[in-house]
């Protein structure tokens, strides 16, 4: 059975950023209109950007977390915008920000239905508890990602550090599922 190329969409990219200077969070929260800062609840400033759509958690140590980017490029762009904004209000960032992609989440569809019972027996490191969650949770070792497989043939890849990991994982799981005969055309 020649299955169609699985369609993959990256849904979320999370990156950590090191700006290299300490940041005065009170200054940031006062100067930036969009900033949310409630130290009792969370020790960082939260800033949501519209373009590109991303959210930042800024900490006083000069480290940030960028979430909600749709691609790696999105994250870089968002970080640059954020750094510009911070410099504008007088936070002197001299170093080039260190950006590390921490997590990537993608959704994909194999285009065929998956028999989850068969999959849960034949694969290693899987959890299938239909009482609690309708999908199979598959912890793949290499690349080290977690896949959620659903009966409809759609799946979610989480925990990838690179785009290539996502593609590799989907390709691999497709092959594995086909090998154990748990795929079926609709």
């Amino acid at each position, binding site marked *: 059975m020649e299955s169609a190329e699985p369609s993959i969409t990256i849904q979320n990219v999370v990156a950590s950023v090191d700006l290299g200077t300490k940041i005065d969070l009170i200054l940031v929260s006062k100067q930036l209109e969009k900033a949310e800062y409630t130290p009792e609840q969370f020790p960082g400033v939260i800033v949501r950007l519209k373009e590109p759509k991303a959210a930042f958690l800024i900490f006083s140590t000069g480290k940030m977390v960028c979430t909600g980017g749709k691609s790696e490029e999105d994250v870089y762009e968002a970080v640059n915008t954020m750094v510009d904004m911070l410099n504008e209000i007088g936070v002197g960032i001299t170093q080039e920000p260190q950006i590390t992609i921490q997590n990537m989440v993608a959704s994909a569809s194999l285009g065929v*239905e998956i028999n*989850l*019972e068969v999959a849960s027996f034949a694969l290693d490191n899987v959890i299938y*508890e*239909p*009482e*609690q969650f*309708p*999908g199979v949770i598959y912890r793949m070792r290499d690349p080290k990602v977690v896949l959620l497989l659903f*009966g409809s043939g759609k799946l979610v890849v989480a925990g990838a550090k690179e785009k290539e990991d996502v593609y590799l994982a989907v390709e691999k799981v497709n092959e594995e599922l086909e090998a154990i005969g748990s795929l079926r055309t609709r």
Partner: protein
Amino acid sequence: MEELAKRDAMAKSRDPIILPSGGCSECGSNKLIKDHERAELICINCGLVIKERLMDMGPEWRAFDSEQKEKRARVGAPITYTLHDKGLSTLIDWRNTDSYGNDFTPRRRAQLYRLRKWQRRIRVADATERNLALALSELDRMSSHLSLPRNVKESAALLYRKAVEKRLIRGRSIEGVAAAALYAACRRYKVPRTLNEIAEVAHVTKGKKEIGRSYRFICRELKISIPPTNPITYIPRFTSELNLSGEVQAKAIQILKEAAKKGLTSGRGPTGVAAAALYIASVMLNERRTQIDVARVSKVTEVTVRNRYKELVQKLELDIPI
């Protein structure tokens, strides 16, 4: 075929034991069976009698009622994992007489009263044992609430003990792990109890979530794999709760088998699928129960019953007269 022959042989002998070691000298099969009626060791595969005149390890006496049994038995009750000391404790008798049946002197009686009191106090030696006793009584309480059979209780207690041994309780609540062990034992013995039902009787603060988490954790750490719940296991219970006939039950099971073949159960909650199958069967055989009734006994919503019902009818092309 071989499976059938094996079952046949098992049914014939009183207490068959399949010995894993040794093997048949003729065909090499290691499926041997002890036939206690003939006192022979037989190979299931080729029928060779390997040993004759086996020793009978049973008691040499017979008892015809409980009174005789009590008189003749020289041993106590079997050990059980459901008690913190496995039921192997020695107790000071409550009677104030010596072995000849003579009464004690008042002084001696006072002494024994004191000894008894102290025995009660030190029966649980340390904190570990006290926790174990607590967990086991919790297991006992939950399983009687859910009216679970003894083998499940025993198995749950064993799982809990293993978890303690491997130090898996650390950082988890005793009640949570006990409930998880009970859930695992239910799944293992195919005695259907949903996580919800267990969470209802368990004294666990975060309820279902915590029990589910502990369940997955002990399954992983103790390396036990339990297949996903089959909806069919719920059918007998729901059938009797709805006062439906055996025909309806058989029909529902048939529907579920068909559905499983077509992969309609994959990714669906087993209770919901079971409820829908039972509903369809009841309608087909003119013993109709309302969707609300079915939903109530299976503890899913009516919407779930309706959705699963639509799916099953459509995909299995069932002819439903309404």
